[in-house]
C-alpha cells in the first residue's frame, strides 16, 4: 500500500486545478447574475486528467454551456489516454473512437487545410515517421475539450498522439484518480492535517462517532466536511488575528477564495460549532481552547 503516498508526487495537475479552478463552484452560479456565467475568459481554463467515464458522467449545467462539471468543479480542457477502436476520416475532420476501459468516446480532430499536405507526406513517407501516426488498436493520448452536440458527447481535440511508453497508461489513470480525489475529498495536505489532529485512523473514528454536538479537537474537522469549509478553517487558523477574529473579506484574501465560497464554508463551520461570530455576523473566530 506504499504507493498511496506517492500520489502526492504526481499532483502537478491537481495543483493547477487548485489555483485556477476553484473560482466557479456550483453554488456560486445561483448567487451571481446569469450574465457572469456567459462571459467566460480563457484565463479560467484548466487542463484536467480524466477517465472517459468521468466525461460520460460529467454534469452539463445547461444545453448551451461551454463547460461541464466533474466532481462539482468546472472542467474545460481535458486530457486522457485510451485505445483507438476506430478511425474514420471525413472531409473536415478525423473521428477517432477511443476506449480507455471505463467507457468509449468519439474524438474529433479538425483537419487544418494548411497542415494537410504535410500529414499526407508523413503517411506516404512511412518508415521513420510511422511512430508519430495514431493507428487502430494502438494507445493514444488526447488533449481537447468535451462538447455536447445533438445530445451526443464528443471531444474536440487539439492534439492526439500515440503512446510510446505504455507506463503512461498507468500514470494517467493514477493521475486522474489523484485529481478526482483532490476535488471530491479535498487537497491531500488538508486531509493529512485533519488526520494528524485525530492521532491516527482509529482515533478519528471514535472521536467522530461520539462527538455529537461537541466541537472537534483543534486542527481536526469531522469527516465529510466540504472543501470550502476546510479552506476557510485553514485560512482563519493560519492568519494572525485579535480575539475579535477575522472579517470574511480578510478570510477570502488570506485563503485566496471567492466570497461565495467563504460564506458557504463559514455557514458549514458555524453549524459544526467550529467557529462563531464576534463583533458582527461577518466576523468570525475559531471556537477552540488554545493549548
Amino acid at each position, binding site marked *: 500500500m506504499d504507493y498511496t503516498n506517492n500520489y502526492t508526487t504526481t499532483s502537478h495537475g491537481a495543483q493547477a486545478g487548485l489555483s485556477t479552478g476553484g473560482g466557479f463552484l456550483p453554488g456560486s452560479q445561483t448567487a451571481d447574475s446569469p450574465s457572469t456565467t456567459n462571459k467566460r475568459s480563457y484565463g479560467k481554463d484548466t487542463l484536467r486528467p480524466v477517465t472517459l*467515464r468521468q466525461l460520460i458522467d460529467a454534469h452539463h449545467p445547461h444545453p448551451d454551456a461551454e463547460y461541464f462539471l466533474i466532481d462539482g468543479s468546472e472542467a474545460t480542457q481535458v486530457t486522457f489516454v485510451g485505445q483507438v477502436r476506430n478511425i474514420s476520416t471525413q472531409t473536415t475532420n478525423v473521428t477517432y473512437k477511443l476506449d480507455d476501459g*471505463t*467507457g*468509449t468516446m468519439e474524438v474529433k480532430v479538425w483537419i487544418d487545410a494548411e497542415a494537410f499536405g504535410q500529414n499526407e507526406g508523413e503517411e506516404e513517407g512511412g518508415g521513420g515517421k510511422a511512430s508519430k501516426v495514431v493507428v487502430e*488498436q494502438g494507445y493514444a493520448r488526447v488533449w481537447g475539450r468535451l462538447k455536447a452536440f445533438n445530445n451526443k458527447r464528443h471531444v474536440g481535440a487539439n492534439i492526439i498522439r500515440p503512446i510510446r511508453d*505504455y507506463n503512461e497508461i*498507468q500514470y494517467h489513470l*493514477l493521475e486522474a484518480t489523484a485529481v478526482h480525489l483532490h476535488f471530491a475529498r479535498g487537497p491531500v495536505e488538508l486531509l493529512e492535517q485533519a488526520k494528524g489532529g485525530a492521532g491516527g485512523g482509529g482515533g478519528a473514528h471514535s472521536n467522530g462517532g461520539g462527538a455529537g454536538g461537541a466541537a472537534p479537537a483543534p486542527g481536526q474537522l469531522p469527516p465529510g466536511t466540504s472543501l470550502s469549509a476546510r479552506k476557510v478553517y485553514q485560512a482563519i487558523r493560519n492568519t494572525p488575528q485579535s480575539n475579535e477574529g477575522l472579517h470574511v473579506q480578510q478570510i477570502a484574501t488570506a485563503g485566496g477564495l471567492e466570497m461565495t465560497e467563504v460564506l458557504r464554508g463559514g455557514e458549514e463551520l458555524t453549524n459544526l460549532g467550529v467557529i462563531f461570530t464576534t463583533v458582527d455576523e461577518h466576523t468570525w473566530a475559531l471556537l477552540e481552547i488554545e493549548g
Partner: protein
Amino acid sequence: MSAEATPRINAPYLSQFSHRTVRLLGKVRQLRGELATVDAGGDVVVHLNRDAHLQLNHAVEIIGKVQNDLSVRVMACSDLGPEGDIDFAAVDAVVDATHRYHEIFYEKEQ
C-alpha cells in the same frame, strides 16, 4: 454505458468478475497452442483466439471474458513489449485504484 466498461483486474479479482468482460495486464509465462498462462498478480489461464499473438516474457494486455473456471477467453489483446519495460507496481496500483475509487472507472453491479 456500463456494458462498454472493461474494468482492470488481476488474478485475485477473477472470482468477483466471473462472466464479465475485463482488462488484464500481465506477463506471458507459458504458451501451449490455444492456451496460455499469464502472470497478473498470480497465474491466469487464457484461451487464445486466432488473432492473438503472444510472446513469452512480454507484457500483454488482454480484454476478455472471465469463465466459470476463472480462466479468461480472449476477445482482444495488445502486446506491450518486453515485460521489463512495464512498471508492474504501477499496474497493481491502477487495479487497486479502479476498485477502491470505482466511481470514475466502472459501475458496480449490485
